[in-house]
């Protein structure tokens, strides 16, 4: 028997239960309007509290590290080598190592990621191959970071005989951030209006010329934003570099692709867990530097995105 309360076109909402407790009919029956309002007030307060927990957690963590680590930040901290068994001195080699590692990673990941994105937007048809590629990308983004480390170790360090080196680490990180770059680039390419391609083709351009001159230049902002987010991700990861590049202590900076390197995330891990009696400021200072690096990269990406959206002429 059809529920008399719900009109036919909304019968999907009928759940077989008595009418909504707040509905006019029910109010007259039970006088529960006030009760419903109190329930709502309580519920909304809980929701607000929950959201505060989530949003404030970030601020709390960042604030805490800033407050405790601020005093460690000094020019010498950033530019001298560690000394006294990591207990004093600076973190210069870790900073340099992270920058070199991340730079190399982007150099490797960007062409391949951009190529894959161009394939997906401009060349691929909707068939099984394309669906398989998308499934593969989703999976790559879900693989645990330590499994990447294991894979990088097995393939690059051992099989390719690169040893623990900047090259092995960068290759591993590049594969890890590939999905980030592909997704962001694809979105950027799709946001370029189709009419640009039509116009270019109608003027006698080939398909690649159209991509190169009528699509890519206008997708650059989105690609850049995605790349910066990928860089920020690579800078903060530890597990993939544990066995592929990270060194505990190096007396000098790496100067070839096949050298090991120190890196900020690994350094933070080591001084928090492996070495006793490190002054708190050293540890908080390292955490702060890493945090600042990652957050400023993220912030840069967001600012670029806003800036280019405002300046967009189409």
């Amino acid at each position, binding site marked *: 028997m059809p529920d008399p309360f719900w009109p036919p076109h909304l019968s999907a909402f009928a759940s077989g239960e008595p009418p909504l407790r707040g509905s006019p009919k029910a109010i007259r029956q039970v006088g529960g309007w006030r009760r419903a309002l109190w329930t709502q007030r309580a519920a909304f307060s809980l929701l607000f509290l929950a959201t505060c927990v989530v949003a404030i957690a970030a601020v709390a963590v960042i604030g805490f590290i800033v407050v405790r680590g601020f005093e460690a930040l000094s020019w010498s901290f950033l530019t001298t080598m560690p000394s006294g068994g990591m207990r004093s001195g600076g973190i210069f080699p870790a900073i340099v190592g992270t920058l070199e590692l991340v730079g190399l990673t982007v150099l490797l990941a960007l062409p391949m990621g951009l190529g894959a994105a161009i394939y997906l937007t401009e060349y691929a*048809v909707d068939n099984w191959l394309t669906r398989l590629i998308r499934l593969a990308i989703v999976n790559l983004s879900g693989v645990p970071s330590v499994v990447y480390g294991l894979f990088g170790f097995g393939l690059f360090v051992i099989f390719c005989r690169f040893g623990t080196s900047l090259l092995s680490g960068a290759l591993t990180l590049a594969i890890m951030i590939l999905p980030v770059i592909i997704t962001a680039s694809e979105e950027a390419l799709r946001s370029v209006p189709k*009419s*640009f*391609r*039509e*116009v*270019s*083709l*109608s*003027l*006698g*351009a*080939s398909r690649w*010329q159209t991509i190169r*001159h*009528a699509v890519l230049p*206008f997708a650059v902002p989105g690609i850049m934003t995605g790349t910066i987010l990928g860089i920020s991700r690579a800078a903060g990861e530890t597990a993939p570099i544990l066995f592929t590049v990270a060194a505990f202590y190096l007396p000098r900076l790496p100067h070839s692709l096949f050298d090991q390197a120190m890196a900020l995330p690994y350094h933070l891990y080591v001084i928090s867990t492996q070495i006793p009696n490190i002054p708190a400021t050293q540890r908080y200072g390292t955490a702060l530097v890493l945090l600042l690096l990652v957050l400023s990269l993220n912030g840069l990406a967001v600012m670029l995105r806003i800036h280019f959206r405002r300046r967009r*002429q*189409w």
Partner: protein
Amino acid sequence: MVTAAFDGVKLAMRDWSVWYGAVRALKSITLDITPREILGVIGPSSSGKTSFLRSLNRMNDTNPAFRYTGTITMDGKDLYRDLDSQQVRRRVGIVFALPLPLPISIYDNLTYGPRLRGECRPQRLNELVEHSLQAASLWDEVKDRLRQSAMKLSGGQQQRLCIARTLAMEPEVILFDEPCSGLDPISTAKVEETMLQLRAQYTLVLVTNNTKQAARVSDRVAFFLMGELIELGKTHAIFTAPQDRRTNDYVTGRFG
């Protein structure tokens, strides 16, 4: 800029049929387009006018479901079998319904095509820019701001820019796909005036929903209905004494 016509015919279409997947958009069209004429193409929506037009410069190729039978030849060469799509599109230009400038400078818009074709001498490029803007009646309005963004122009100016952009490729045939649909009457008049001036050097094919525009501008008119070419004749004849009853119904406004 106009190569010698072949047997007095610029474009010859024989039994041309177009399918998009399983849907047949054009049914065995046969017609000739003579050089230096304006051919108007009229008909209600979904009559195949746009498919017809886009077949002439191979823009249908961009649709993966596109299939065809029949031939289209230009000066004796088959557009689909003897030439490749880039060559065709350089010789057969198109102006779209909405003004579609690229968000770059006016100068760069005009030199986009020639540069991709390999032209890099600045002198030659400047010449092309000036000549095409003159031919599109836009030179006086923009000659001092060629480096400004094309997006700053008004709608009518942008459409004339698109015409100039096509002219800069030095084509032989120019297709117009409802070019005035987004324009105010003054800009429309300017575009129509430009078309009449261009007729001296180019072959033009104009697809339009506006029968009065077809009457004003074309030399001959083709009436399409549901993918078929119903009637083709001189403008005057089509509008005053059409031979087919359906043509008569359309031009007198009984349907459309």
